[in-house]
């Protein structure tokens, strides 16, 4: 499935704005992204959020990703 990258995550992936990955849940997705792009490590610390069909998930490795879902990797966000 196509995983779109936003903001500064793109430069950690060598400048591309989307990558192709097969993953069943968020944990698998993040593990594979890190394997392919070790530079993502610096963002893992500050945190990455995953948007699945427009809904933003800040935690929860177990969240399943439907194969036809629209997936975005976003920086982790905070409110106040």
């Amino acid at each position, binding site marked *: 499935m196509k995983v*779109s990258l*936003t*903001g*500064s995550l*793109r*430069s950690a992936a060598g*400048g591309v704005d989307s990558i192709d990955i097969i993953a069943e849940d968020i944990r698998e997705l993040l593990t594979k992204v890190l394997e392919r792009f070790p530079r993502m490590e*610096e963002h893992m*610390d*500050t945190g990455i959020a995953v*948007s699945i*069909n*427009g*809904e*933003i*998930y*800040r*935690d*929860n490795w177990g*969240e399943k990703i439907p194969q036809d879902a*629209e997936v*975005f990797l*976003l*920086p982790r*966000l*905070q*409110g*106040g």
Partner: protein
Amino acid sequence: MAHDTSFTNQDFKVVGTRVNRPDGVDKVTGRAKYGADLSAPGQLVGLFLRSPHAHARITKIDTSRAEKLSGVKAVITSADLPDLTGGRQIDVLENCMARDRALYDGHAVAAVAAIDQQTAKKALKLIKVSYEILPHVTDVDEAMKPGAPIIKDNVFTSGVDPKPKKPSNVSKVSEFGHGDIEAGFKAADVIIEKSYKTEQTHQGYIEPHACLATVGPDGAGELWVTTQGHYTYRTVCAALLGMDIAKLKVTSSEIGGGFGGKTHVWVEPIALALSRKANRPVKVVMTRDEVFRATGPTCSTSMDIKIGAKKDGTITAASSVLRYQNGAFPATWAMLGAMTSWACYDLKNVHSIGYDVLCNRPKTAAYRAPSAPMAAFGVESTMDLVAAEIGMNPVDFRIKNAAKEGTRASYGPTYGPIGIGPTLEAAKNHPHMRAKLGKNQGRGMACGFWFNFGGQTCTDLNIGSDGTVNLAIGTVDVGGARASMSLIAAEELGIPYEQVKAHVADTSSLGHNDTTEGSRGTFSSGMATIFAARDAIEELRKRAAMMWDIPVEAVEWVEGEARAVGNKHSNLPALSLADIAKRAASTGGPIAGHNEVVADGAGVSFASHICDIEVDPETGGTKVIRYTVIQDAGKAIHPDYVEGQFQGGAAQGIGWALNEEYIYGDDGRLQNSGFLDYRIPVCSDLPFIDTEILEIPNPNHPYGIRGVGETSIVPPLAAIGNAVSNAAGVRMDHVPMSPPRILKAIEEANG
């Protein structure tokens, strides 16, 4: 255990009614206990010594004379605070206590604990700090210029390729957007390009930070503290002090306002460190001056906005360049501003870039929908300029370009069902729009967007032997959560609201709960409460089955009681919650329900505001004549408290728009660190604030709840900017629009 979190579109019995809150009597009688209201036998007073310089190297600190003063039990400097986090939390630690450099006026350099206030003050005077004053910079644009003093020599701009070799005050560059900006602007009939500035503001909670810290020689400790997140405080303090999380019990006092400023630690780790060193309880209460100088205000900003549109009102391209001042430690507020800039609109070609910049100012923190209000000021002001240029009504212009379900958000993902369209339509049709405007009065409107979050949550529901229910939640109650959670529990169990008593549990009594921020309180704890109640219902059915000696499949829970169903058993009289609870000892012991969840799918939130402002052309003074907030709440569990959030956010936005700002002198010191000169709105400044709650259900919550706490601070800066500009006849581009600024703008326009 996985639960189905989808919206079920049910009718409600108690949810949505305006009940009295359970903590109301305590708060109107003065019994409620806030951060500074608890004392312990033998407690010491903790006070801080703070840098009077905006930027200085600390060459020496001599605490010997302070330590020898009779009555002083502990003195702490950074020498007592090694970094135990491997660098991960060094910024937090360094902000709590300066290490080799004082980075802003007010930065803590030492702390003492003594038997009373007088002795502590004397001790501070006996601490000798040798400073080597360094050049400072407090303005965001100045800090970006080559040659500006570098705040941190280990910060290199991230988000640029290749990685820079020289340190910079720009800690991060973030870009978002899609489409072809160049082509978009080429296709425009009208292009408006303008720059804006917003000054720094503080959340302004009336209760200063305060805590009572006790750490014993066995490494166990307690912290009573005013906070938005006692679990987060526990995690951070334990990490900084090398304590075990389970051994640090943090109890959240009632909180006297937070708005994001109490999501981070400021004095708490030091209070614990003092207590550990002295082996006595230490009470720390910040003064108002300290709160302004040394906690976490929001960013000041500078930005460039550009919008291109066709004559028919279609926006063809939109771009924002944002520069946000983060204080002395790297943060990602500009990134957040870049993400939210254009979120209200359906744009084919959009680009936003955010620069996060260091300055010699306090470490910034979240302020209610952090970063969004400033970007909205620039965007929504420019939207009005474009509408005027095209000759289109500003509301219609926004309606034409509003995002809707299926729109690609400017920050990336596609929207599900959202409320921007409905709030704009409601604004257009609101009676406020038809109210007559008097002399020197102008009307303005604006829309705003904010994310909502879910997060780690758990809830305990325990049923007493008389059938009344204790509900333990872990999200701090900032404005009515206990009432809302009680309503939800009562709704699920089918019992009267008065039969439920909610309280906020301490960290030893309930599992981790994320901070009350991101408008997540009602959404997350609400979800956990629903499932904890359903969990309890399963248990209640089992107990009823046991009492009747029938299979549990023949038991239903309806309207607060167990009913036996089916041909064989339906003649059995129903059992109420109280009936079953009375027999709990015989049927298996105490009856409870529990739920742990990472609540997600909180969705996003939109609002539209309308305001009328009168400007006195001779003094630049302003008067708020009329103000209306229209916002989507998904489902208003307790309408009074939803209205309260709308009105409170609007009031903060009004203060920010018209009067509040941090004023720094040439010496880099904060000039107005008190409520006299940092002037927040008072009762006589405001009219009644009209509210309209829209309910477009969130498909990812059983009750359709959306977060409401933050979005209402996003539109005011721009709504007021537009109103003032219309009233004064000149476009305002600098917030706050205080009388001197308005007067200056009028005079400049008149030549």
